[in-house]
């Protein structure tokens, strides 16, 4: 094992010899060590061993993410209150908003399931939007990052697998077919808002380069 001093790799550790620690990047998935070099805008630096994307800067990413996140915040809030899906059969009808869907398990004493569904389709996505907004707002305008920015961005990354809006959107399509012979289903305005929201979320994630964000948070006060 190579001897290491606290700030520099010493001679004899191959191509990385003499590199400062802050200039190195280690693949979080496989631990391979590289000299970090910022690729050109739109290019991606990929781990040679496991092909994990390490750095993927996009031009004007910060401001785009802020705008898209703001649009999503508005959409999700609006989508909560408008009717989401409607149903009619034999002269009877019912409408359900996103909140009704999220809380539908309540009626049958399945409160745990109700809370979980509400969390995965509304609360976690909403929380992630707020956290990203909080993290990036000062950075984009070249100000000092907020004091809790690191924690906020760490949480936003950790919550990512639990935000399941896109899975819920596909679930609507399945539900539609499942009751097709039982009743007529119609889409309310909230359904379309929600669909747009899912598309924006996917676009937004493609702009977010985690490494670039961490780099910009380095200036944050501790």
């Amino acid at each position: 094992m190579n001897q290491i001093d606290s700030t520099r790799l010493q001679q004899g550790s191959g191509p990385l010899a003499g590199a400062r620690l802050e200039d190195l990047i280690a693949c979080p998935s496989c631990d391979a060590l590289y000299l970090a070099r910022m690729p050109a805008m739109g290019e991606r630096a990929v781990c040679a061993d496991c092909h994990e994307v390490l750095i993927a800067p996009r031009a004007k990413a910060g401001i785009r993410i802020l705008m898209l996140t703001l649009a999503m915040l508005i959409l999700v809030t609006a989508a909560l209150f408008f009717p989401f899906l409607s149903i009619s059969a034999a002269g009877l009808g019912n409408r359900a908003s996103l909140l009704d869907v999220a809380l539908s398990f309540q009626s049958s004493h399945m409160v745990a399931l109700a809370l979980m569904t509400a969390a995965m389709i509304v609360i976690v996505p909403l929380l992630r939007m707020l956290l990203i907004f909080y993290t990036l707002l000062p950075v984009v305008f070249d100000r000092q990052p907020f004091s809790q920015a690191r924690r906020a961005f760490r949480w936003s990354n950790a919550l990512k697998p639990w935000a399941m809006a896109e899975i819920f959107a596909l679930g609507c399509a399945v539900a539609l077919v499942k009751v097709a012979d039982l009743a007529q289903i119609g889409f309310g305005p909230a359904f379309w808002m929600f669909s747009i929201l899912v598309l924006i979320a996917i676009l937004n994630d493609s702009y977010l380069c985690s490494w670039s964000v961490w780099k910009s948070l380095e200036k944050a006060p501790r």
Partner: protein
Amino acid sequence: MEIARKGPSLTARAAGLVACRTCARVWPAGTPRCGRCGAHLQSRDTASLQKVWAWWLAGVMAYIPANLYPMLVTDTLVEHHASTIVGGAVEIAHHGSYGIAAIILIASVLIPMGKFIAIAYLALSARHGSRVRPGRRHHLYEVVEFIGRWSMIDVFVVAILSALVQLSSVAQITPGPAALTFAASVIFTMLSAQSFDSRLIWDRDRADERRPST
């Protein structure tokens, strides 16, 4: 673009460093916390496999009742009907919607089973080694991580239907107990996959690669 590097890979650990899995910064080995993002640092998560197996077992245990009990209870004027996951998919196929039946079967049966097998294999091979190259095993891990969440689709379908189909006596849909255990199984399996330290896939092969040269 790949980051260029010659020869066998140097890992952060082999260079006497510890890598932050949250922000990819490296620190001298033994540093407890990342100075950039504040995450807890560990060169390898030594308790990783134990956590993987604990969540894995919980996931399998919850998956069994999820298949035995009804997922969806439908009450119409003429009948009271409770259907299990597989039963529901078969009914949909009988109505001619083969595509949707396939989605449900893939999301609720094929993916969970495949995940159990894949995670078990990854955990076993991290400990005992495997002839399959680490690159391919890593790819399997990524697929498991990506696809696991999609099993939640059936739970969401039950939620949508229970909220919507409330037409007094004409038609009423309520969730069955399997909705809860199935959701639990998906969550436990996600936690199992997340507990796995994917760097363990690579260690054994890289050590073999380095040994002849030194």
